[in-house]
């Protein structure tokens, strides 16, 4: 029979799964809203982001309440500390969704000056990275951790190419600076979402093995592009 501490931890695990679903859903919806410059969809994303924050706060309260009441040690304490950190990472991903939706609002009256290919791809790569990292947290499954760096390399390549392409447009046109800035910023939000996934993966490794490990190409000095 599960102890009370195990039941509390199980409840928090469920909330973390829910937060993962909400955050990635909001993030992908925000990219779709930007792609279509869809104000109604952007407004929905902003609402979702508020709900994400509420769930993250509930997790924070539950974690501290559980530590205070049940005084866990070693593995259990590590698990709770991990949930707290991961909840923050997922909340940040929800915030990027909010900010992309905010950019959609600032785009009133503007149009895309090129077909959007890189940004939806970067968003998809970020989502895959988050999903792989979250398997380590929710299921203690670290089997996909090695895949993360491949996704990161692909994301780095795409970001570099996107920036080159935008630069080329800026050389030809003077009326697109604001939209070009939004493309760069949203590209960075995708990278930052993937960055949160690396932080999640590092916590997963810590939770499962008890070891602190740095993940990502930047830490191995292999990345040919900008640090994320």
């Amino acid at each position, binding site marked *: 029979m599960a102890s009370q501490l195990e039941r509390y931890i199980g409840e928090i695990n469920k909330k973390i799964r829910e937060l993962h679903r909400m955050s990635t859903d909001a993030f992908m919806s925000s990219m779709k809203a930007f792609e279509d410059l869809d104000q109604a969809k952007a407004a929905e994303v902003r609402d979702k982001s508020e709900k994400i924050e509420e769930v993250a706060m509930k997790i924070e309260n539950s974690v501290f309440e559980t530590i205070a009441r049940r005084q866990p040690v070693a593995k259990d304490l590590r698990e709770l500390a991990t949930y707290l950190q991961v909840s923050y990472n997922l909340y940040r991903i929800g915030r990027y969704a909010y900010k992309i939706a*905010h950019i959609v609002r600032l785009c009133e009256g503007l149009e895309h000056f090129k077909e959007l290919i890189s940004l939806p791809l970067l968003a998809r790569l970020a989502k895959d990275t988050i999903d792989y990292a979250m398997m380590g947290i929710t299921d203690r499954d670290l089997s996909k951790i090695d895949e993360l760096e491949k996704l990161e390399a692909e994301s780095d390549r795409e970001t570099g190419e996107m920036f080159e392409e935008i630069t080329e447009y800026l050389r030809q046109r003077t009326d697109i600076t604001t939209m070009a800035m939004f493309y760069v910023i949203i590209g960075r939000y995708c990278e930052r979402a993937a960055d949160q996934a690396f932080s999640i993966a590092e916590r997963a490794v810590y939770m499962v093995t008890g070891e602190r490990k740095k993940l990502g190409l930047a830490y191995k000095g292999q990345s040919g592009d900008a640090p994320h």
Partner: protein
Amino acid sequence: MLNTRTSEITGNLTNLHSLVRTALTKAMKAFEDLDLDLAEEAGAVSTQVEKLHQQIEELVFNTVSKYQPEGIELRRLITYNNTSGSLRRVGQYAEKIGKIVEYCEDYDHFKELESLPYLADLAISAIDVSMRAVLDEDLSEIGELEKLEAQSDREAVDMFQEIADYLSRRRDISELAMYYIIIGRYCERAADQAIRIAESATYMITGERTKLGLMYHEDPESMLD
């Protein structure tokens, strides 16, 4: 005693704040001068930041577990944990700026760097304001943060415009231009962490979760941290 533990944590937070200031200042100076040695020093400070953050996190959890605090005492510990996390992230931005200096080994600046050091100064000032709110439990300076954020937003937009002008005239600078933009964003993100710290301070003192920052005033001109 809970008070003794709390004092130990605030002492560590004060040290962490100081380390983070040093890391960001050194990293920006290293980029300004494209100085690899200084970038390495900034990286070493960032490593210290990481370790101290881990110590603070462990202290907070052990304190909550051992003393089972409630009300303001629990909120204080939650705030210390969140503040430490925010400072750690600023340390990570400093480390990343240091990495960019390594990538710039074969480059020269194509313009005089004014905006980036200014953005770093604004971020450090914002963090100072927020840290006073946490450590002195005094929210009287919080209003300053939005002024600093507005200055930072204006500068970031002007910088992007200036870089776009350069890009339209020169073909050989796109990679360095990208680094300018990325470092500018790190500074903005550092300032964003200052806002997060101030929100935690507000929660600690009032018990209420409040949003700070220009974005929440629906200001259409507000930039995107």
